[in-house]
């Protein structure tokens, strides 16, 4: 069959998208699709025509186990338990509280910029199987200082250090400096991008680097913690 013929392509695409093309004919069509731009165009057009007709279907909320199943299929190491039973959650909550207290102490001691601090929890990525736990980072309300602390000490080889990064949604990460693997790190004005709002920060990460930090200005070791703002 001549699939470049627009009329034939249109008729087949209509039946494919409507769902009435079945069995072997459907499988054959799907095999052909990637190499036939005329068919692809016709399919896109029919999708645009027919799919919005499903907009009248009343939504049906799927049971919560569906989302848990999806997480388990995609990230088996991450979703072994329902979220409220996970130890890391409670560690993060208590850690966040601690850091918030630290942040508040700084705030109370130095009024007036009374914006609330921003707390970010960085979870272990599994990028290095020996590194686990979470890191809590708290920006002061004006975004000019940052307190970061691992919830449990991170064990590293003696010739490796942790480096903290921030990054926009798209683009290269920038270094915020080295951070202690076993205690509180305070980064202040000058080491930070300045005001938090409008800085474009989307997420933060921690990588394992040689002493003194990444030689290239970009993460060179595995990214071991990651958290969204």
């Amino acid at each position: 069959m001549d699939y470049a013929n627009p009329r034939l392509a249109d008729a087949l695409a209509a039946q494919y998208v409507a769902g009435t093309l079945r069995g072997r004919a459907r499988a054959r069509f799907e095999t052909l699709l990637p190499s036939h731009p005329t068919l692809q165009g016709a399919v896109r057009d029919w999708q645009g025509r027919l799919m919005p007709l499903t907009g009248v279907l009343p939504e049906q909320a799927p049971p919560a186990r569906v989302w848990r199943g999806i997480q388990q299929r995609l990230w088996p190491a991450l979703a072994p338990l329902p979220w409220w039973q996970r130890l890391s959650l409670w560690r993060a909550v208590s850690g966040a509280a601690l850091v918030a207290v630290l942040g508040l102490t700084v705030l109370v001691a130095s009024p007036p910029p009374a914006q609330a601090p921003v707390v970010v929890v960085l979870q272990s990525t599994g990028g290095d199987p020996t590194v686990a736990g979470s890191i809590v980072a708290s920006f002061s309300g004006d975004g000019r200082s940052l307190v970061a602390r691992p919830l449990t000490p991170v064990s590293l080889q003696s010739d490796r250090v942790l480096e903290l990064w921030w990054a926009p949604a798209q683009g290269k990460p920038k270094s915020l400096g080295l951070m202690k693997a076993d205690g509180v790190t305070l980064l202040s004005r000058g080491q930070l991008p300045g005001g938090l709002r409008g800085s474009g920060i989307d997420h933060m990460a921690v990588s394992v680097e040689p002493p003194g930090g990444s030689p290239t200005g970009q993460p060179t070791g595995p990214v071991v913690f990651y958290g969204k703002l």
Partner: protein
Amino acid sequence: MKALNESDWPERSRELSQLLARAGLGDRAAFGRLYERTSGHLYAVVLRIQRDRAMAEDLLQEIYVSVWKAAASFDAARSQPLTWLTHIARNRAIDSLRRAQAQPRTESLSADEDDDRPDPHEALASEGPGPLDLLGQASDRRQLTQCMEHLSPPQRQSVALAFYDGLSHAEVAEQLREPLGTVKSWVRRALQTLKGCLERAAVRDDGKAA
């Protein structure tokens, strides 16, 4: 593919496009939000076609696993996100159908089995709105009602059964007790009419926008 005057389909597009783009870069939180925003719709689409709830739940999981894997290939310039997602969902649901599973759904069609010409509305009674009602509502929303009235009721009904409930030509023929060839040409005719209606509606909208 002009944006149609269709409820919130295009309005939700921008947000969903962004979530998809971020999911394509590996952002799990964005993927979670995408799931929150779209799973109710996709589950409804799947359940119409695959009425076995356990199977529909499994399908929904497979669908979102594919969405996560294919998110990077989504091209916002060429498709609307809900259109793209709905197509993936329908495709999976249709592929999941086996004749044996499709069969029992046609049991409760007519209260009176001796009636040679079952009333189409009664024949479509099922939980939730019947496919013909859905097509009617969709036409109302898109101001296609008049245009769709050019189709005979069985023509409309054939395409509604095939599209919303995922019935094959043969199943539609069985349900309507009509010859297979007749049903095939009804569906073809209905799809072509729909296409003509939408193209004219798009021209009308262009005229209004100008």
